[in-house]
């Protein structure tokens, strides 16, 4: 779960990392008094500066006018509901600090650079020597001396070494204790008056660890939320509700597309494979979805009914990998029941049914009874997708 900048900064503050003075506002009137300010839109995306989401003001009137303009606008696909208004810093130098995981080395890693303020990936590519990186053993931990070593390696000494070392160490501690997948401060600003402040921050907390961080809500007022490139559609929300209604197996995770061939596909890797294969053969899917585990007949039935209720969905293709856990007969029953209850014919509505594996004998018997076109494990996913698209085109 990605945190808003102002939420990330609440965590930084709690871990003793100094911040610019600031306030979060949702209306221009909350700004009072003349001051040199920066106003930043609070959206869950990088690249705010380029997108016009960061503005500067010198007076109250100016700041209020900018706030009125920014609030309610859509920036980087996100609606602006809050602004973070901070003192404008006189920048002497900018630094970069981050903690994340190196997935290939399977270790946490801490990064520091004295060339902050720019995109770190560009920096790492163009001037790798400017980024000091250190993987650490989580059983030993990342200590303050590690931080000082890194900052020293970046060419700093004296008071800056101590100040920046402390920030880096506290950031790594936050990363570890809060189950973050990334904790980044870019830039840390050294101001003209000698302060070291976290000017911008990006923190993601791992979704799978949220259950053990009640303090996010209770202590820091950070609510749990579903993230995505766009908010879920009503159709997707209804599918998620069906999935959540019954703990047995997965039958949901639908994502809406604008085609007309409904897909009942699974599991994780196979759904990706099937979706590609359908498109490769010229099919236009109405949705992506996943079934897996061992969902009940009722759950499958409800999901299929939901899928068929989508305007324009004329036929559905039911394709999975060779299953070991999901029962073919239960899925077949669920699909057929949903169609029959709509007063329609399974043989006409199902473009193809290709789920080989566990209880396939019973499953195929049911399909046969209703005259549904099905295939067994001798037919590949690619071929099943081709047949589904052909059946859809012929109708």
């Amino acid at each position, binding site marked *: 779960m990605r945190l808003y900048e102002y939420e990330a900064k609440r965590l930084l503050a709690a871990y003793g990392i100094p911040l610019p003075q600031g306030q979060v506002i949702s209306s221009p009137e909350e700004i009072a008094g003349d001051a040199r300010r920066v106003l930043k839109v609070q959206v869950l995306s990088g690249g705010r500066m380029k997108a016009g989401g960061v503005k500067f003001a010198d007076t109250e009137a100016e700041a209020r006018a900018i706030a009125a303009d920014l609030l309610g606008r859509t920036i980087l696909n996100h609606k602006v509901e809050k602004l973070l208004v901070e003192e404008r810093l006189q920048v002497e130098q900018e630094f970069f600090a981050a903690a994340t995981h190196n997935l290939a080395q399977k270790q946490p890693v801490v990064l520091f650079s004295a060339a902050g303020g720019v995109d770190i990936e560009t920096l790492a590519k163009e001037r790798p020597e400017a980024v000091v990186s250190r993987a650490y053993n989580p059983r030993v931990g990342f200590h303050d001396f590690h931080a000082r070593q890194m900052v020293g390696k970046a060419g700093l000494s004296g008071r800056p070494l101590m100040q920046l070392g402390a920030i880096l160490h506290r950031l790594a501690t936050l990363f570890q204790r809060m*189950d973050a997948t990334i904790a980044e401060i870019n830039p840390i600003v050294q101001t003209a008056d000698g302060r070291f402040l976290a000017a911008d921050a990006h923190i993601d907390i791992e979704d799978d660890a949220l*259950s053990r961080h009640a303090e996010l809500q209770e202590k820091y007022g950070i609510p749990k939320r579903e993230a995505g490139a766009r908010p879920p559609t009503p159709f997707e929300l209804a599918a998620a509700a069906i999935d959540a209604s019954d703990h047995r197996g997965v039958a949901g995770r639908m994502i809406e597309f604008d085609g007309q061939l409904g897909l009942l596909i*699974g599991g994780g890797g196979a759904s990706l494979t099937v979706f590609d294969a359908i498109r490769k053969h010229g099919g236009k899917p109405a949705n992506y979805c996943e079934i897996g585990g061992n969902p009940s007949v009722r759950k499958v039935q409800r999901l299929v009914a939901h899928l068929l209720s989508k305007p324009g969905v004329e036929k559905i293709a039911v394709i999975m990998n060779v*299953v070991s856990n999901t029962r073919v007969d239960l899925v077949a029953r669920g699909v057929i029941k949903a169609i029959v209850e709509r007063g329609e014919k399974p043989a006409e509505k199902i473009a193809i049914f290709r789920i080989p594996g566990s209880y396939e004998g019973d499953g195929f018997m049911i399909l046969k009874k209703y005259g549904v076109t099905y295939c067994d494990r001798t037919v590949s996913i690619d071929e099943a997708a081709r047949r589904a698209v052909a059946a859809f085109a012929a109708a």
Partner: protein
Amino acid sequence: MAILIDDATRIVVQGITGREATTFTKHSLDYGAKVVAGCTPGKGGESIYGVPVYDCVAEAVERHGANTSVISVPAGFVRGAVYEAVDAGVQLVVVVTERVPRHDVVDFIAFANERGARIVGPNSLGILSPPRAKAGMVGGPAADVRKAYTEGPVGIVSRSGGMTTEIANLLTQAGIGQSTCVSIGGDPMVGTTYMDVLPLFQEDPATQAMVIFCEPGGNAEETFSEFYVKGGSTLPVFAFIAGRFVDEMPGMRFGHAAVLVEGERGSTRTKMAAMRAAGIHVVEELHDLVGGLRAVLKT
């Protein structure tokens, strides 16, 4: 021959009294795998399909010589379970559980490294070496496993458990058998990656080629490509990458936790380019694996 598991593998199932674990224990026994013990704290003395249950993994190791553990316990208990298995001397730990926090994963991997043990998973469906060895739920009931998997020269490594069986089945239908099939797990952080498995297959006399099933997200394929070139491996590697449509939808998560494309990062386009440049055979469609493999396999 095979890698990771074979006839010498003696399995302890941690969390054996859970519904899923009970089921795959039965299936493994039916297939001929040696599930020698189970562990569920507080249920010592019970038995599951004739497999004795103990309170501690150490007992299973002492009494039955267990050398491999399959962990199927709730996510919050996985870290402790891995520590227990590794501390008891188990050398291979397969974590089936999904949604294990990443900070726990790096921590128990570090402990396993200290003790020279190997972690497969989390979120792995298991490992299967036909004709008898099976650790975890991969393949399902024995009769289904025998339909999809046959003994032979191809190693399979997959980020998707279901696709492990799909690919084995595709090869079996074409008369191509498998040495060992590893579901490495769909999470961004897993204990055993393509890179870790390649040298094992390279050393295995029974394996003539390796197939990897890839997904968008993360950088495992890119890192593997570099490793493949640098390591000078002579083992032919075939790759299929699913989810090419995900490239067009940055920021949207599909399926496994790792499947997320951010800008160019994690896109299938860059993965395919990196693998092709490294000399890995990237096939366009899944069934193209058959033709590609036939061209390199010695009969």
